[in-house]
């Protein structure tokens, strides 16, 4: 019904485990990063992948790579909605409802991948020198990151609706929640997900930075949509506040 640390742990622990597994796979096999290509295995290759190489990548391998990247980066931000579903579902249906939610959520990201990846392939094929593409992507990311629409997407990511509990309606309800959450999540993160793919090098480091940013900005409460600087403020405040607490005991008196 309400927040319970033990129940919450039953969600965040496995979710972070899954995310960690995906990160481990990416560390072991960096070529699994979408569109990174074997050319970059040494992180030293400055040339973009050739059009021929990109066109020969199988849809399956691109799909697997895209999924691995999503699981690694996005699983942590699903802790809250998954916890909501767990709380609001019959005990025996929790797994099923979570699966329905994930199916809906995946549909959106797969659809986005089906647009983003070919767009990326096309851009890389025709842009020539990779740094122009990187500059364009960074500019786009900056504009989107600080825009009101980004804030609107972030706000909607905090929405946890009432869910149907019985039968097919429960499946549909969880699936719809997955779709809706996926739309706002993708709206918030799509351009950030693009960045690691277009970089000429340091893809994995870029993925880690972007994942940290996505996780941190999801910790912030909703606020009025407007043009505003958005970065890792909440995570930074958490770390500095904890450090301050440990270093300096509170001694301020509140007497009249």
């Amino acid at each position, binding site marked *: 019904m309400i927040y319970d640390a033990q129940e919450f742990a039953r969600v965040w622990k496995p979710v972070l485990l899954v995310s960690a597994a995906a990160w481990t796979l990416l560390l072991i096999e960096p070529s699994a990063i979408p569109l990174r290509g074997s050319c970059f295995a040494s992180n030293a290759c400055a040339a973009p992948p050739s059009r021929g190489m990109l066109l020969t990548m199988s849809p399956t391998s691109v799909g697997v790579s895209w999924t691995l990247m999503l699981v690694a980066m996005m699983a942590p931000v699903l802790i809250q909605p998954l916890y909501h579903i767990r709380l609001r579902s019959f005990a025996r249906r929790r797994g099923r409802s979570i699966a329905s939610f994930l199916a809906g959520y995946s549909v959106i990201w797969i659809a986005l991948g089906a647009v983003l990846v070919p767009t990326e392939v096309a851009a890389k094929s025709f842009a020539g020198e990779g740094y122009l593409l990187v500059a364009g992507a960074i500019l786009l990311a900056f504009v989107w990151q600080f825009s009101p629409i980004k804030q609107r997407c972030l706000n909607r990511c905090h929405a946890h609706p009432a869910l149907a509990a019985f039968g097919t309606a429960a499946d549909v309800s969880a699936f719809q929640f997955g779709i809706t959450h996926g739309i706002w999540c993708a709206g918030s993160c799509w351009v950030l997900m693009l960045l690691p793919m277009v970089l000429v090098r340091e893809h994995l480091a870029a993925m880690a930075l972007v994942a940290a940013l996505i996780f941190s900005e999801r910790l912030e409460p*909703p*606020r009025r949509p407007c043009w505003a600087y958005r970065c890792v403020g909440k995570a930074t405040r958490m770390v500095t506040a904890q450090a301050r607490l440990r270093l300096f005991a509170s001694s301020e008196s509140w007497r009249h």
Partner: protein
Amino acid sequence: MATFTRANAWNNGGTFSNTDILWYAKAVGAMQARTLNATSSWWFFAAMHGQYVADNGFPGWGFLPAPPSVPTRPQPPGSVSGLYWDQCQHQSWYFLPWHRGYLLALEAQIRADVVNLGGPSTWALPYWNYFGPANQFNIPPAFTQKTLPDGSSNPLFVTARYGPDGDGNIYVPTPAGAQQHPNDPNLAPGIVTQQCMANDLYTGSDANTPPPGFGGPTTGFSHAGGTSGNVENNPHNLVHVYVGGNAPDGQTYGLMSDPGIAALDPIFYLHHANIDRMWAVWNLTPANTNPTDPAWLSGPAAAGGREFVMPKPDGSSSVYTPQQMNGLAQLNYTYDDLSQVIPAPPSGLVAVTERLTKLGATAAAKRIKEGVLVTTGKNTELVGATQEPIPIKSTGAQASVKLDTAARRKVSASLANASETALPDRVFLNLENVQGTHDAAELSVYINLPDGSRPSDHPELLAGTVGLFGLRSASLKDGKHAGQGLNFILDITKIVDALHLQNAFGADSLKVKLVPRRALPDQAKITIGRISIYREGN
């Protein structure tokens, strides 16, 4: 010995003969004479609780009926409003400590103005104890006078304060207040009670405490939306919406009904002084301790959230934490009356023993009395839910909560086989995702009320009464809670026990009836996303 003592506003009949009130009125006037952007102004303090300064249309601050004549400019710089405004903590375990710090800051500012006006340096904020003897459920009369004794306008008088009946008669329907103001028997009595004082857990649930606990649920910085704690739900929320009430035309509501305008009404601080007093009384029972969790003690700022910060009369600011609000002794003030309002609750073991006896498990109850160790389970599980959202009409709504057969059987088996090592389930009704734009509403929730019967004839079927204070803010899509609305948890364990003993808990559904105290305005447009029932047990 504390320097400052907060006294009952009803002293000297609650009139201006009570000098605490007279000086309060004069100092409120001084604060109201300042501009919105001055940290010592009445308006700035109200905005720290919550504000709709820039909203177009009611309840935007520019659209409120005078008096008071509420300014919407000059606004402070964004850095100042971002630091101070919209801080009030609701549906949170920070509800009590944040408001204690807020009252202290307001009191310090008022006292500074009282001294400037030639008043006593020991002035302290009076409280309105609507549970007090005689007619103290009525608002102290000084707040309803249009002028002060010297003939000047009374800053305590507010136009948009309509009361439970929408006629400007301001009272709180406590048991005594409701008795003197008979209600339509086809609607609900909607009584304001002190039942929360029988809780013995600040956050969580136990035999004497329904979730989320006396003080509220674990949260971060929580400005709007979520689940109210037990003292917050009743009496706090209900007093707000009853005192504010609906305007006679039904189009708008009173200041006290909505957290974004509530602190513009001077009675706000006397209501909260009483809530603060109740917290202090609750703490006097040795078992009733405040949280010791570092997350509570250090406040939301320790987890990266906003700080609790108040301006001082000298213009500087002061940051505070719940730990610094932990008790009156450390804050140099007290109340003139900290007597227990209801008998201290039985210990958890006594409550469990009584329940087991009622359920027929007398042998188990006896073994508990003899000191056999009790094990308690805390599994929480959904038992049933409505299938569709429930719109609330002017006279309320009725809904059928479908029960899951397997989960219902678990509850039945738990009640039938209750023992000292397998305690019977406790059962709770949830109102989830309550959304709308009209805060001035309260609903009493009845279980299996017979068709055609009057709610007031069946107090044994009453799950509880909820006030929708904060509904509008909690329903804004870009609000602090993403528009998900309010949630309420009501303990229906006794009702389910009775159904079980009557062999009536075998049905596929429970009938839930939601009834207001007064017919709701047509434009209220309140919706409950889902009504659910949960078990808590082994």
